[in-house]
């Protein structure tokens, strides 16, 4: 995956711990451009950090597409996390607080959903995982 920007969409690889930090920093920049409040910026970046780590640890690596979006007068930020990993068999179970497939706290997916306005997860066994998050300025 080559990092780059096309039509305002920033594409970043998530293949190492360092990439997760880069995603956090790039997403932080977009939340500032989108004029999210400091608390909403922090929530969105934290969710992005959880999801990027999922992409790396559970998805075996993948990429993130992030961009500033607008709707009427509102501006927002959107990030999509994509991997070609094993996928999730039971999404409802994976979205439960405390449920973990590994050694984590089991808060990554369920917790991130609470931190953003829109959260859409699309996954199936063998078909990878795609998670989209969006938050808007007030």
């Amino acid at each position, binding site marked *: 995956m080559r990092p780059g920007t096309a039509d305002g969409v920033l594409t970043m690889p998530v293949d190492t711990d360092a990439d997760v930090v880069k995603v956090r920093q790039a997403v932080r920049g977009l939340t500032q451009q989108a004029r999210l409040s400091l608390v909403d910026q*922090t929530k969105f970046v934290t969710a992005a950090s959880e999801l990027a780590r999922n992409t790396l640890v559970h998805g075996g690596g993948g990429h993130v597409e992030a961009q500033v979006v607008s709707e009427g007068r509102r501006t927002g930020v959107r990030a999509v996390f994509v991997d070609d990993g094993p996928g999730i068999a039971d999404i409802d179970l994976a979205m439960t607080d405390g449920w973990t497939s590994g050694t984590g706290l089991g808060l990554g997916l369920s917790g991130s959903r609470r931190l953003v306005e829109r959260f859409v997860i699309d996954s199936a066994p063998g078909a990878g995982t795609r998670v989209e998050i969006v938050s808007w300025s007030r």
Partner: protein
Amino acid sequence: MTDVVPILKIGSTLLVSIQTDLQDDTALRLQEDLAEQITRTGARGVLIDISGLEIVDSFIGRMLASIAGISRVLDAATVVVGMRPAVAITMVELGLSLGGVRTALDVERGLRVLAPVEQSPEEVLLAAAQRAGE
């Protein structure tokens, strides 16, 4: 390349100030370095300043809880100081409670929390005798 978070020793307290966005492996390394330093120096307290952290996600939260747990087993107390308000709000919403981790608003208050473990046994006995005499 992994960054290293410096650990300072002041009296019997180890002071860690996290100034950069922590990579996961850097956080794990810090945990190991602290355990090693507590044992080597006989430190009784660990003060972790996270005022430089823009976010605390579940991984960093787990690291802070682990450090507190490891320190306790090695007979040292841990205090986490300097959490930003937006970080506190986000952490609670995420579902992280940092249970078992002592916190204080800033370094000064954190040092005050650790003050009892900074005293020598003689000082503790003297203070107790004074209280008894009052």
